[in-house]
């Protein structure tokens, strides 16, 4: 049950700075904690987040065990032309989620 919330304007003026806020459901298990049975819970982290604007990488981040569950990442980009922003999260155990949001530039 992977879910993501992306908050950003649908339209922007050319040259305007757009604030993008993302939230994704993920346990971000560090691999250092023991479960109820005393055994270590295997590490399960999102390792990398990236945002591509019409194929061009505009933002990326590496994530580590110190990041809390359900990571919230916010950043800005310059609205250049109408296009699709592709957000992708990749991590342990083959975790991968991609969301697309269309930005119309006037």
């Amino acid at each position, binding site marked *: *049950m992977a*879910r993501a919330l992306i908050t950003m304007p649908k339209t922007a003026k050319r040259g305007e700075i757009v604030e993008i806020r993302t*939230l994704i459901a993920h346990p971000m298990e560090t691999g250092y904690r023991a479960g109820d049975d005393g055994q270590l819970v295997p590490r399960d982290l999102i390792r990398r987040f990236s945002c591509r604007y019409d194929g061009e990488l505009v933002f990326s981040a590496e994530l580590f065990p110190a990041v809390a569950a359900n990571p919230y990442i916010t950043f800005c980009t310059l609205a250049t032309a109408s296009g699709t922003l592709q957000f992708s999260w990749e991590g342990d155990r083959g975790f991968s989620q991609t969301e697309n949001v269309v930005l119309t530039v006037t």
Partner: protein
Amino acid sequence: MRRWWLALCVVASVGAASDTRRSGFEFMTPETQAIQRDDAQNPAMLWVQEGAAAWERKAGTAARACIDCHGAAPTSMKGVATRYPAFDAATRRPITLGQRINACVVDRQHAAALVPESQELLALESFVAMQSRGLPIAPPEDPRLAPFRERGEKLYRQRIGQLDLSCAQCHDERAGGRLAGATIPQAHPTGYPIYRLEWQGLGSLQRRLRGCISGVRAEPFSYGAVELTELELYLARRATGMKIETPAVRP
């Protein structure tokens, strides 16, 4: 004339100051408050979003979705959470909003009951409860609830566990004080299900109560136990008129 005016001022100030009840929100740091104020930051919205999808998803052998009977939640579910726990005629006991949802899942959708505290149930419960955000808590004036609520109040004031503490000793007598690094809130159930930073997830009021009960080294009641619902009934009466904040964030 002047005396009259003075008396009026005194009455007015007493009227405004007489309600000393404070939501747990007001005991939080500005940073945690900011997470709750902004839906784009509030991780509980992930569950709400899931609940909104579940509201429209057909389930069970009846192949019926919540929306097929209830219609759009923003209108049909508005204010519902302010009235729970409510008396359930079928089981002749008070039930919580989560138990009401589960009864619907079993009786109307003919689906398997959702496990208490499961992500699916919390998602639906938070979605339904959010439709009452900003509305005052309004427990039903149902005489059948009275004996349960009285037992709830008794439990609230009863010393329990190896620490020999009652709910009232912390949350009535020492609210605003500190328990180690944490501020003791007044225990008003205004924002459940809550996203608790300590849990790194969403949890119901029963989970919170169980946490407190095991915190004073007493044996917690199991999920769905009538004692927990009785406590919830008393807490709802105690918080009557306070505004629902669901989905709230707490430290």
